[in-house]
């Protein structure tokens, strides 16, 4: 069994901040930075600053301070999850750092929910961020090189999201979760992350439905992380062929962030893409009651790609229920 049902876990609040590209996109946000440095010296510092700002804001908004928080779970895309660790060093809060690339946010919620379910922990914060240029630098080419990108490539979103998660009843219940398996379908193309992650997403969705004995129509919406246009199409067909699951109400978060004229090709990626869309669009619409949120992460390392290895991927799922 890789699925867990939670009885007392709720998402109480969320705060997000976005970068310049996202502000010009399709969704309206409350907080944003206007350039990639945000008056810091380096991109790395800018990412840490964004994370700090969402963590401070969520504490302030809910009248909390570091002593009220039992646990922070979080991660980002940088090597050694730098942004999160360097941000949290300023707070006297217990911290679990995690990495599953763009599935990090969902993994954080799963871990935090488990801790809260034990009732030993009362309040937790999940945290994630990504920065287009820190990841571009780390995973691809130098920032100003501006290497031509193919149409299948995705664009790492810039932003940070924090969410308060506790036993206190709120409108959004974390109802259940499924922990994913690492899946590798032999893709070597570092530009085609959608194709890398689609089988992992399919496996987790199928596993979730099977273990909890649910039909896909149980959910009003399946929200995947950052498959992009290519991955979304692949997932649909892959689920039908391999698992006989017909995906009807499916939104890919990566495809919601940018406007079509922004030349971001297949869509947004990065651990922050999914929570940005979830908190700033999907949950605000109040249209869906039962949502299956599937975070997808490509676990590639540039070193292993250079050494001609294929790219593994993982997907974790949580089921959210909107209580009205």
């Amino acid at each position, binding site marked *: 069994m890789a699925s867990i049902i939670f009885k007392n876990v709720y998402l109480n609040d969320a705060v997000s901040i976005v970068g310049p590209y996202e502000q010009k996109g399709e969704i309206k946000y409350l907080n944003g930075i206007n350039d990639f440095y945000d008056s810091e010296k380096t991109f790395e510092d800018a990412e840490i600053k964004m994370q700090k700002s969402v963590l401070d804001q969520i504490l302030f908004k809910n009248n909390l301070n570091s002593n009220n928080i039992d646990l922070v779970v979080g991660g980002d895309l940088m090597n050694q999850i730098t942004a999160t660790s360097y941000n949290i060093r300023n707070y006297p809060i217990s911290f679990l750092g995690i990495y599953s690339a763009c599935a990090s946010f969902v993994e954080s919620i799963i871990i935090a929910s488990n801790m809260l379910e034990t009732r030993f922990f009362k309040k937790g914060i999940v945290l994630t961020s990504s920065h287009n240029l820190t990841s571009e630098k780390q995973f691809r080419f130098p920032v100003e090189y501006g290497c*031509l990108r193919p149409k299948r490539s995705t664009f790492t979103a810039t932003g940070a999201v924090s969410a308060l998660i506790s036993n206190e009843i709120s409108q959004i219940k974390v109802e259940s979760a499924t922990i994913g398996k690492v899946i590798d379908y032999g893709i070597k193309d570092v530009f085609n992350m959608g194709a890398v992650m689609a089988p992992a997403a399919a496996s987790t969705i199928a596993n979730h439905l099977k273990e909890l004995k649910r039909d896909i129509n149980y959910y009003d919406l399946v929200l995947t992380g950052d498959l992009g246009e290519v991955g979304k199409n692949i997932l649909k067909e892959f689920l039908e062929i391999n698992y006989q699951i017909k995906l009807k109400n499916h939104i890919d978060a990566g495809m919601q962030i940018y406007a079509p004229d922004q030349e971001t090709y297949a869509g947004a990626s990065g651990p922050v893409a999914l929570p940005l869309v979830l908190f700033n669009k999907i949950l605000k619409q109040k249209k869906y009651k039962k949502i299956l949120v599937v975070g997808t992460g490509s676990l590639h390392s540039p070193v292993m790609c250079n050494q001609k290895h294929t790219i593994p991927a993982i997907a974790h799922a949580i089921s959210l229920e909107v209580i009205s």
Partner: protein
Amino acid sequence: MNKEQYQNLVKRKTPKENRLMNSIVAFFFGGFLGMLAEGVMQLIRHIFNLSILDATVWMMIIFIFVACLLTALGVFDKLVNIFKSSLIIPITGFAHSVTSAALDYKQDGLIQGVGSNCFKLAGSVILYGVVAAFVLVIIGVLIWQV
């Protein structure tokens, strides 16, 4: 579905690149850049009364400088997006690759940062350029001198 079937599915769902269009753009703008370089070279030659060889060196210095400046101003990557490989293949691309890598690491210090990383992309051009020149010279000598 096995891995091969999956590769087929991926192939089917992945959008095709406009290779022909990109090549045509690169061909014409690359050619235009060459023409421009020739013009600049001739201009220098006549104004300063230099030999073709000297004027060519000056022209290259100008092109390298302009490319580096545009990279530093954050314009070059946008131009690459429009003019494709026509700016990457000539010497401007080489200058651009060195400057962009150096810019990335400027905060990491002069030795560990800029010094050890500025040839991150250009290093292979230099290495294989030298190796290719070496091999070709040997072949040339064997053909024409023996």
